[in-house]
């Protein structure tokens, strides 16, 4: 495994942990981070969030990462993994503009 891949995996783990903590803190979820499945749908079956929870989560992520999230592309909000994918993409885009 190259050091670049290792760094990418570590960063993904960090972002996933942060998103889980935001979920737990902002939505007062009675769950431990390791009980939340990264691939589980955020809405409906899975975490069963509603649109109120979603907006609170979006604002929490924006505050934490100092970014503005697109709220019209609902694919971003399918699961924690898709959210983290988007955050990684945003970081990569920022890095190429610096």
């Amino acid at each position: 495994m190259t050091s670049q891949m290792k760094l990418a995996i570590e960063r993904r783990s960090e972002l996933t942990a942060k998103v889980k903590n935001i979920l737990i803190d902002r939505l007062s979820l009675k769950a431990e981070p390791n009980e939340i499945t990264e691939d589980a749908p955020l809405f409906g079956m899975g975490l069963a969030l509603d649109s109120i929870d979603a907006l609170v989560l979006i604002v929490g992520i924006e505050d934490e990462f100092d970014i503005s999230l697109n709220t019209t592309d609902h694919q971003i909000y399918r699961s924690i993994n898709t959210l983290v994918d988007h955050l990684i993409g945003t970081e990569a885009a920022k890095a190429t503009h610096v």
Partner: protein
Amino acid sequence: MPSAAPSARAVPAKQTLSHREIAELMPHSVPFLLVDRVIELEPGRRGKGIKNITVDDPLLLGHFPEQPVMPGVLIVEACGQLAAVVCAAERAHQPKLESSGGRRPLEILAMIERFKFLRIVTPGDQLILEAVIGKQFQNMTRIEVSARVGRNLIAEGTLLATRGS
């Protein structure tokens, strides 16, 4: 001198609203319409409004008989109503929905995310309300609101509202 060509620009949105104009936009009526006048308006974005507090306001009669104080929940409601006016003003020229029997959708308070009350409001006070429309997701909208009397901040908070019909 040649005459000026007629302007092709659209008529700008109104920047103030009288009580009558507010009542036309809102489903509420006296005594529960809590915005007397809108003094600044950017439809769909932000607004500033006035609510005058009077000793004979029926909403204050029992709160409290010896010392009338505007209930905090009504300050939240007034702020929420101003936000609803800001949203309704944006939709004022949109076609009415067939599915809702011709009625325009309402803004329904969905969550008081946080709210802080710093001072009491008594008869004679003029509340200056402010609402700034924030992030939206699906039908949910986040709104930052505040209420002042003069320069004093009375209350401020964050509300979530949804669009019902």
